[in-house]
């Protein structure tokens, strides 16, 4: 298992492994100690100088001591510089790597945009070529669905089974990078298909003004989908289900991940578990504080069902729209008494992390921290005034669906979950597994990089000196308009 973490962000371009950042910090600490020791030896030397000792008739060992002190001072002088130079070299390499990586991403994005535009421009031609084959194909699908009513679902299940058996195709950093660039180019494909001049598409896109991009593409799907009965939004209702007396506050990222609720379907097809958990912290004379934990996608069907934590909400949230799952969390927060002034931290896994980042960055709340785990948050500028930590696997395609990272304030912790080991059979996207992210969260908790440990300390400090009064879990459902 690869336990190596790559850390970036925190307001810096630097990208490096946790080990490299920790080494740089250690060398800076050594340099500081050497500077202190050199100054201390200078003061010690002035206590009893060699001429004074000789004049006083001190024994030869006193003179030997002076010579050893002089030798140590000489050594420390050069060592001080050497430790500083090594630390600087490490920091510079991390900064240089980060800038080169950012430049490479820009080039890849430009290339993907050009390819996307060309592909879009060819789509009408391809459609014209394929048009004669479409009627018999559609007729076949229609007949098939009449003869085998369950056929579409079986086909989807079959695709899932095939991906589960061939999950290495998607579980690798190369495929994930291609997906990320593909997502960033959807607006270019659409522009090409509509015949919009390439310069105009480029100017509006992420490579230019950023007006068109992942959000506008998702918005287009959300606008067009309902015409085919897909991605149609509904009203939602949220109900408190379980309330317990609060326990100790969370410490670190792994404990936060453990508190995120899970909504699952049981063997008999019934939903179980909750969507949102809200912990209330109190202290005399202080405003109540809240930790909000949000679950991931429970229903991957493009047709909205009863569960609002579905694909419809995924696409809607990425479009920046008030998707059903976002409204469900807001309803739960209102029922908990959270106002715009209430200090609140958001933690979420997968879609829950996307919602956590969206609400945290919305400006509608007094956000004091965001933790998003395995979430497509690339285009959301989160962090800055408050600590924000994003955990992503470089071989997990889900975070890639959010496109390239647009901000540098959040601390991004990355790990290749399946580097150098086999993927489990039968799991379509194993790198998105919650257990794998728990391992990453544990490693992040144990990491030595100062920017990460500071962020985790700030997250933990949010509830310092307060009592966890209650932990309330909520369940949401879609309701007819």
């Amino acid at each position, binding site marked *: 298992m690869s336990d190596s973490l790559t850390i970036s962000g925190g307001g810096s371009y630097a990208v490096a492994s946790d080990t490299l950042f920790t080494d740089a910090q250690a*060398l800076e600490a050594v340099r500081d100690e*050497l500077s202190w020791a050199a100054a201390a030896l200078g003061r010690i030397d002035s206590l009893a100088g060699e001429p004074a000792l000789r004049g006083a008739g001190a024994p030869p060992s006193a003179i030997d001591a002076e010579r050893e002190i002089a030798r140590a001072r000489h*050594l420390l002088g050069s060592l001080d510089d050497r*430790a500083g130079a090594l630390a600087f070299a490490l920091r510079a390499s991390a900064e240089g790597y980060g800038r080169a990586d950012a430049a490479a991403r820009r080039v890849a994005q430009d290339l993907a945009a050009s390819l996307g535009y060309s592909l879009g421009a060819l789509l009408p031609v391809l459609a014209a070529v394929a048009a004669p084959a479409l009627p018999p194909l559609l007729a076949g699908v229609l007949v098939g669905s009449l003869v085998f009513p369950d056929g579409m679902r079986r086909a989807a299940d079959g695709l899932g089974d095939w991906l589960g058996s061939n999950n290495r195709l998607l579980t690798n950093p190369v495929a994930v990078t291609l997906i990320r660039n593909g997502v960033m180019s959807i607006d270019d494909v659409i522009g090409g298909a509509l015949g919009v001049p390439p310069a105009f598409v480029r100017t509006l896109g992420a490579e230019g003004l950023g007006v068109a991009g992942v959000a506008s593409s998702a918005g287009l799907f959300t606008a067009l989908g309902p015409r085919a009965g897909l991605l149609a939004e509904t009203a939602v209702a949220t109900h408190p289900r379980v309330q317990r007396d609060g326990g100790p506050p969370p410490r670190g990222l792994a404990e936060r991940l453990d508190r995120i609720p899970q909504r699952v379907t049981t063997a008999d097809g019934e939903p179980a578990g909750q969507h949102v958990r809200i912990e209330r912290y109190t202290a005399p004379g202080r405003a109540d504080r809240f930790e909000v934990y949000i679950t991931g996608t429970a229903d991957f069907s493009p047709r909205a069902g009863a569960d609002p934590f579905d694909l419809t909400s995924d696409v809607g949230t990425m479009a920046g729209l008030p998707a059903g799952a976002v409204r469900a969390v807001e309803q739960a927060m209102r029922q908990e008494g959270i106002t715009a002034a209430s200090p609140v931290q958001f933690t979420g896994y997968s879609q829950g992390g996307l919602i956590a980042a969206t609400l945290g960055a919305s400006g509608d709340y007094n956000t004091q921290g965001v933790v998003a785990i395995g979430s497509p948050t690339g285009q959301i500028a989160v962090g800055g005034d408050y600590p924000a930590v994003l955990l992503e696997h470089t071989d997990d395609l889900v975070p890639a669906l959010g496109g390239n990272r647009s901000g540098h304030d959040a601390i991004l912790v990355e790990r290749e979950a399946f580097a150098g080991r086999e993927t489990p059979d039968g799991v379509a996207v194993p790198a998105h597994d919650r257990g794998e992210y728990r391992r990453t969260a544990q490693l992040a908790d144990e990491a030595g990089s100062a920017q990460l440990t500071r962020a985790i300390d700030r997250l933990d400090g949010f509830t310092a000196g307060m009592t966890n009064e209650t932990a309330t879990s909520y369940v949401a459902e879609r309701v007819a308009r």
Partner: protein
Amino acid sequence: MPRSVARASPRGRPPGSIARVNAEPTLSAAIPPDPALLAAGAALAAQRAALAVAAGRLESARARVPAGAADSWRGVAQRAYAAGVNDLGRGLDEAIHSVRLAQQCSARAVATIAVRMG
């Protein structure tokens, strides 16, 4: 002026080892207290204590020097970094050795002066 007849070399001990502090043998026995020697003895005692603190800080700094085997990079840059870190560690070992020797010599000198002062 009293002179020692034998002098132990400060070298030849492993780094970090502390020799037993013995007064150096002298030709003459106790002589009347010399204010300059008295002051030198006090300065050397303070020096010995300060050196002990400095040696402790340097040893803790030595423990913080990275191993130089960064896991995520390889090649020429990694080898240069590893060599630099090794050099730093070796140099720090020498500096600690010198400070410890200076501490031992100071202690020895203090003991010798105490003997001379009777």
